[in-house]
């Protein structure tokens, strides 16, 4: 605390001490750089305190909770139960099912999303008249909230909604998209691909723009066709950003909640009960916060493992 207050004083009063003590030049420089370092520390301190307090402390707190039995309605505090929650949760078919659904959801969204986003990014990479319009238009779903977007699609998928209207218009029968256990998860996934396309495209576009044009020229001189240029110039050049995109996509997709809550509430027949929906219900509907925390940490472990595997695989192959 004393350190903080003196340094804060220095910050405010533009340090006349530094100007007064002139003699040894080296000494002033060193104390000057120390002064700068201290100022830097003070600049980052509020953010550090906040993030430690509201990101790291909760993780530790959550880990502690996962070894306890705790209902927020109970008068007594959390009761230590050891690894019982983890044993219970890992033997719980509902939870294992939700992990499976989460994995299916990620797999349904990620490949089409990456392929489409890359295709579109390559098309809007060249400057041409109207490129700004396409970039912005494709980005619009990203800026609209998941809740609002899900509501639009709830109507599109409804019995008398636009999708069934179009299908009937061309002579195909209508389908109960969100009420059929076979089509509910793909339907939610299709919406998510649509929603995430723009942000993925923009990130990949930025990656494409870091690839020097000379590399393409050189490849062309060597007689490389379009596919060879894509395979040996574009893909290797995109590797870092592709890794970033895949990892963040996995991290975000595996935590999906709002779209499922709005579109299906986890149904029909739990076909869309992703892990976060189950965790939410466990913690806030059934007030079982200990086991919900255990579920959250198991999910965390899976997300971390899969995003690491994805990053590694992408790192090895171009």
């Amino acid at each position: 605390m004393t350190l903080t207050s003196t340094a804060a004083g220095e910050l405010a009063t533009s340090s006349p001490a530094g100007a007064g003590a002139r003699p040894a030049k080296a000494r002033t420089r060193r104390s000057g750089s120390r002064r700068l370092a201290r100022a830097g520390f003070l600049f980052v301190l509020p953010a550090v305190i906040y993030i430690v307090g509201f990101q790291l402390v909760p993780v530790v707190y959550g880990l502690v909770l996962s070894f306890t039995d705790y209902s927020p309605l109970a008068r007594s505090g959390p009761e230590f139960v050891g690894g019982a929650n983890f044993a219970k949760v890992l033997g719980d078919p509902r939870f294992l099912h939700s992990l499976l659904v989460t994995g299916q959801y990620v797999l349904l969204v990620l490949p089409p999303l990456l392929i489409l986003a890359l295709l579109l990014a390559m098309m809007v990479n060249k400057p041409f008249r109207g490129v700004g319009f396409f970039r912005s238009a494709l980005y619009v779903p990203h800026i609209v909230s998941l809740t609002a977007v899900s509501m639009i699609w709830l109507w599109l998928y409804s019995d008398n909604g636009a999708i069934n209207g179009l299908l009937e218009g061309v002579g195909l029968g209508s389908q109960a998209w969100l009420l059929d256990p076979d089509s509910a998860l793909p339907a939610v996934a299709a919406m998510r691909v649509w929603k995430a396309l723009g942000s993925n495209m923009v990130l990949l576009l930025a990656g494409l723009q870091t690839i020097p044009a000379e590399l393409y020229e050189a490849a062309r001189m060597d007689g490389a066709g379009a596919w060879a240029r894509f395979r040996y110039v574009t893909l290797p050049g995109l590797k870092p950003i592709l890794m970033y995109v895949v990892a963040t996509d996995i991290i975000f997709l595996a935590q999906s909640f709002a779209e499922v809550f709005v579109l299906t509430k986890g149904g029909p027949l739990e076909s869309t009960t992703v892990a976060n929906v189950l965790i939410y219900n466990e913690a806030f509907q059934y007030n079982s916060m200990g086991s919900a925390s255990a579920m959250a940490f198991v999910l965390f472990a899976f997300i971390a493992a899969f995003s690491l595997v994805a990053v590694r695989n992408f790192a090895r192959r171009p």
Partner: protein
Amino acid sequence: MSVTLQRRPASGSGFRRWRRRLRPGSFLVLFASSMLVLLPFLWMISMAFTPTEQAFGDVSLLPAEPTFDNFVRAVEDANLLPALLNSLIVGAIAVATNCVFAIAAGYGFAMLPFRGSTALFYALIATTAIPISVTLIPLFLMARGFPLTGGNDILGQGGIGLLDSLGGIVLPFIVLPLNIFLARQYFSSSAPDLAEAARIDGAGELRVFWKIYLPLARPLVAVIAIFSFTAVWDDFLWPLVTISSPEHQTVQLALTRFLSAGNIQYGPMMAGAVIATLPVLIVFLFNQRHFISGLSEGSVKG
């Protein structure tokens, strides 16, 4: 719009580049994808103006007899106006705190490195990978036990703390690590000579930051303001968990009121979605460049 107009003469060899066109095939694919992306929004707007009786089985984009009834019902049924105000307030708080603390932190990491600052920076950024489900329950309990709020004593006992309050909604958004990242990226590419000159003139570090670098960083402030606002505005799970009374609902929560009814009233729901989308869409249309470049530049340079 004005952006494109200004740009043409600015880039010297640009004139030729602007005239370059896409191959017809690519153009067709782009056009079709853009339409597929925009069509649901056009339907949303169309539905919002369509009288409920006509809404079903109608795939035309222009309502035959446009009406404002759905908007009136959305505002009345879902309590949308107070919810909009709540969302605006918490959004403004998050914008203010992020603009001060996240930018200061990014500046400190970029311009005033201290021992271990790089490691600390990456540790902070790594927290973005922590899943929300892991922190959701502890944050809920911490908000409930927040001292001296919501009837709590100094030990956080006795009341509901920050639960069911606007302060509670904004709690996870005070400083977003992504914003620190963007700020550091921004300042690490700005020139240090100005700071050195100012220091020789006897300016303190706070003054150098506040008077010299912050005024130059207006694009950064715009990006961080936009990200912070949309993060709070769009959030759904945290308000769902913490807010219990209707008067503290945010826009996204208020929208879900249309879902709870037995048969969903799509007209008013679409009107509500239009209202909830409009503020963000307007900000986007005026700042497209900031939205898109801010996101891409920040992530690539790192």
